[in-house]
């Protein structure tokens, strides 16, 4: 009896659940054919168990002499069989709507015909038998009329026979038809699966397919069981199996709906639904425990069971609280917190992209996220390319194929005005003459997601319709809006990362250039018997525009050069490298100093623009005679601090090198004596500036050299650098700073020229 009650309850709950789901799905989006068909299918699937449960409930109560199996109410339960044609219909529209491809779509209603007939037969069998029975009596008349009525009567008696046959085996006949329907439906579902590329849709289809397979298996056992096996299955088991098969198919469908969002049933619905079920189970359990508690406690506590049971109830209540929570969490994790829930989508997406710096991988994740969570059929990207400064539609995933969009494209301008996800059709005003509009139309684009950073359009994502013909809900649009904001952040991150890589690479190149420049500078000054030379150079950036060099001209003569290219950094460094090379080759040719500078100027003026020039001082020191012959091409005047304290400036020469062609240069010669100091420097020293914008000045350099002329060259350089840095502590210095100092140790034998 209890088992019977349990069965009834189970049937009723299954049925009620299916009917409830059917109503919800239909209501959710009545305009959608898939919703309507699925709703109807589930409604009829639910009717079966509900009728059986009702039957079982009515059965014991009824006192009428007529067996319940013969009542109209019972006969009506065959209506649930409409599930099968609806399943077939479903298989035609899911996962791909193939109905529109049919030549005569209205003919599809034929599939309902057998079940309409079945219902008529079970409902009106007795009336029909009576009707045909009455007809057959009339045929007994003899005469001419019998010629007409004879075959007619025979037909009627055959029909009568057929009807009786069908009535007695109807379950088997229509069961067989149902099996054929299910096989056909699963065939269509199977072939439909091949049209699907969307990963989420694939999973949905798989679950639905398994549902039909399990249902089919149970149906076969129910029907073939009675014919193949030696003993017949009891009628209850048979019907139970059939119901089970429907419940399995429908159950998996429900699973697909809730877990994989097979239909766009709102989250709130799913949440409240699951909440009610868990609550119902727990409350039921709780009530059973409370009811049974008295019986359980009585033998132990005897008369005091009443009091103890209250304590027990409180205990159970306390104990149930965490269980309730746990069960709720568990069911939530099973159904609610799936990959497709919006909050979850955002969490997952931001987690994935936060550490992602490869733009193409980023596109893949965006692509995958949109396809699996929103079932978008196709995703296209139009992105701004920093390298070519153009927008481009990416056709293939690997970025290899792309169509450049003109920046004056009207549609692009229209999209530039958008802030939120917008339907493509609403941009019709921008369509005229737009190449982009054509490209998007070709690709059946429905929705545009602009990606904007402040006012700059980074690009946009173009989405086609959702797969299986679902439409975008307002919830979807909200999600897409938030997603596109996240995409913007991710895109900017990725771009910054690429830029920083580029910067690191450039930095490495600059470091290499710096090394080359250092290699070009003399590693140490030449060692002379008569004089001591020291040098120093600090670039303001990694590579500098200053340089100094020492050239060995012959056994007696040493060339000293100090130069400063206009500007700073890499361009200045390149200029310097060129100057150094030209100078060395000119000096090798054995030309006098003025000609060396004239040729250099001509070569550099011809090969560089006018605003690029070099100030350069070149002198040749004769170690035997102590004579220093020089020419100054617009460079800061080197200082000759005589041992006696007087100062001379080496000014003779001509304009800066490389600015203007056809310049001429003078040269001059000074005789150096013991303890004289020659001090060469660039404007990085004299133009050092303190915080109140005062310059160090050439005047101060001159005074300092004059005051410290007794120092050794290296010490003099170190001291003046320290003085300069006390004045202007900026490091690296604002400008390249280079100093060369020379001090005469031995006196020279004075020639009189003719010697």
């Amino acid at each position: 009896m209890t088992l019977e009650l349990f069965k009834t309850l189970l049937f009723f709950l299954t049925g009620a659940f299916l009917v409830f789901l059917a109503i919800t799905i239909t209501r959710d989006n009545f305009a959608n054919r898939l919703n309507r068909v699925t709703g109807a299918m589930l409604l009829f699937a639910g009717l079966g168990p509900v009728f059986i449960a009702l039957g079982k409930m009515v059965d014991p109560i009824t006192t009428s002499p007529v067996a319940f199996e013969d009542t109209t109410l019972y006969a009506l339960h065959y209506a649930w069989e409409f599930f099968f044609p609806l399943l077939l219909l479903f298989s035609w529209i899911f996962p791909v709507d193939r109905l529109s491809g049919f030549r005569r779509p209205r003919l599809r209603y034929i599939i309902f015909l057998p079940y309409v007939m079945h219902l008529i037969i079970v409902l009106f069998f007795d009336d029909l038998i009576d009707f045909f029975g009455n007809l057959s009596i009339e045929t007994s008349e003899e005469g001419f009329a019998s010629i007409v009525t004879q075959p007619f009567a025979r037909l009627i008696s055959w029909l009568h026979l057929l009807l009786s046959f069908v009535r007695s085996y109807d379950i088997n006949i229509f069961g067989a038809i149902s099996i054929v329907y299910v096989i056909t439906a699963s065939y269509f579902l199977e072939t439909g699966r091949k049209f699907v590329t969307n990963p989420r849709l694939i999973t949905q289809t798989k679950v639905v397919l398994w549902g039909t397979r399990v249902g089919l298996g149970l149906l076969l056992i129910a029907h073939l069981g009675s014919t193949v096996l030696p003993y017949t299955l009891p009628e209850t088991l048979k019907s139970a199996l059939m119901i089970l098969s429907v419940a399995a198919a429908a159950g998996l469908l429900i699973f697909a709906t809730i877990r994989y969002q097979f239909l766009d049933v709102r989250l709130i619905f799913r949440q409240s639904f699951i909440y009610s079920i868990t609550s119902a189970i727990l409350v039921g359990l709780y009530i059973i425990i409370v009811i049974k508690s008295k019986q359980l406690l009585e033998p132990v506590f005897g008369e005091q069971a009443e009091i103890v049971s209250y304590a027990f109830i409180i205990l159970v209540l306390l104990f149930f609280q965490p269980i309730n929570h746990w069960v709720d969490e568990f069911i939530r994790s099973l159904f609610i917190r799936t990959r497709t829930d919006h909050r979850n989508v955002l969490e997952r997406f931001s987690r994935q992209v936060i550490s992602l710096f490869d733009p193409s991988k980023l596109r893949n994740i965006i692509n995958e996220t949109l396809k699996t969570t929103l079932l978008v059929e196709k995703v296209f990207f139009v992105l701004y390319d920093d390298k070519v400064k153009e927008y481009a539609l990416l056709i293939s995933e690997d970025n290899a194929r792309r169509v450049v969009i003109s920046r004056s494209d009207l549609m692009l301008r229209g999209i530039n005005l958008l802030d939120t996800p917008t339907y493509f059709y609403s941009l019709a005003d921008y369509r005229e003459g737009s190449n982009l509009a054509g490209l998007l139309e070709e690709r059946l684009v429905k929705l545009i997601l602009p990606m904007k950073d402040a006012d700059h359009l980074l690009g946009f994502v173009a989405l086609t319709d959702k797969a299986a013909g679902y439409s975008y809900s307002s919830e979807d649009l909200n999600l897409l809006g938030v997603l596109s904001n996240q995409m913007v952040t991710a895109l900017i991150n990725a771009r910054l990362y690429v830029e920083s890589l580029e910067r690191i690479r450039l930095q490495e190149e600059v470091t290499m250039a710096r090394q080359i420049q250092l290699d070009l500078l003399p590693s140490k000054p030449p060692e002379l018997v008569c004089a001591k030379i020291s040098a120093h150079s600090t670039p303001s950036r990694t590579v500098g525009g200053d340089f100094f060099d020492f050239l060995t001209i012959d056994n007696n003569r040493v060339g000293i050069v100090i130069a400063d290219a206009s500007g700073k950094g890499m361009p200045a460094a390149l200029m310097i490298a060129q100057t150094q090379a030209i100078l060395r080759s000119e000096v090798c040719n054995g030309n006098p100093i003025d000609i060396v500078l004239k040729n250099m100027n001509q070569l550099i003026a011809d090969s560089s623009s006018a605003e690029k020039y070099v100030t350069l001082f070149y002198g040749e020191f004769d170690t035997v005679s102590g004579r220093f012959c020089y020419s100054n091409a617009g460079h800061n005047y080197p200082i000759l601090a005589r041992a006696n304290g007087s100062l001379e400036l080496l000014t003779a020469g001509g304009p800066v090198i490389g600015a203007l062609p056809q310049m001429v240069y003078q040269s001059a010669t000074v005789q150096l004596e013991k303890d004289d100091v020659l001090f060469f420097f660039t404007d990085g020293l004299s133009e050092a500036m303190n915080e109140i914008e005062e310059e160090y000045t050439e005047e101060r350099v001159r005074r300092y050299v004059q005051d410290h002329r007794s120092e050794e060259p290296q010490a003099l350089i170190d001291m003046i650098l320290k003085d300069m840095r006390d004045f202007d502590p900026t490091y690296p210095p604002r400008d390249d700073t280079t100093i060369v100092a020379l001090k005469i140790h031995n006196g020279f034998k004075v020639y009189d020229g003719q010697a």
Partner: protein
Amino acid sequence: MRLSDREQDGVVVLEPKGKIMGGPDASLLHDKLYEFIEQDKKKVVIDLSQVDWMNSTGLGILISGYTTLRNTNGELKLANVTEKIQSLLTITKLVTVFEAYDTVDEAVKSFK
């Protein structure tokens, strides 16, 4: 650097203000000069009275302007050269290249 211009007796007078330091300044002066060259106005005086400071790149800009004009048979002269710029021109020995005058009027007159 800010750059204004006017015309005086058929001579273009450019008046840069502030610091002449390369970067955008270069193209600013360059574009302005080309604008006048296209109008066949090739007598130019740069009034340096309001230039506080000029670095090597700034000097490069002046040289470039000078070359540009000379290559189109025009001429660039300087006026109101401050002490600082004068010493820069002296050191670089560009005083021999640039014609410099104490006042704009004198510079304009020199074109006649």
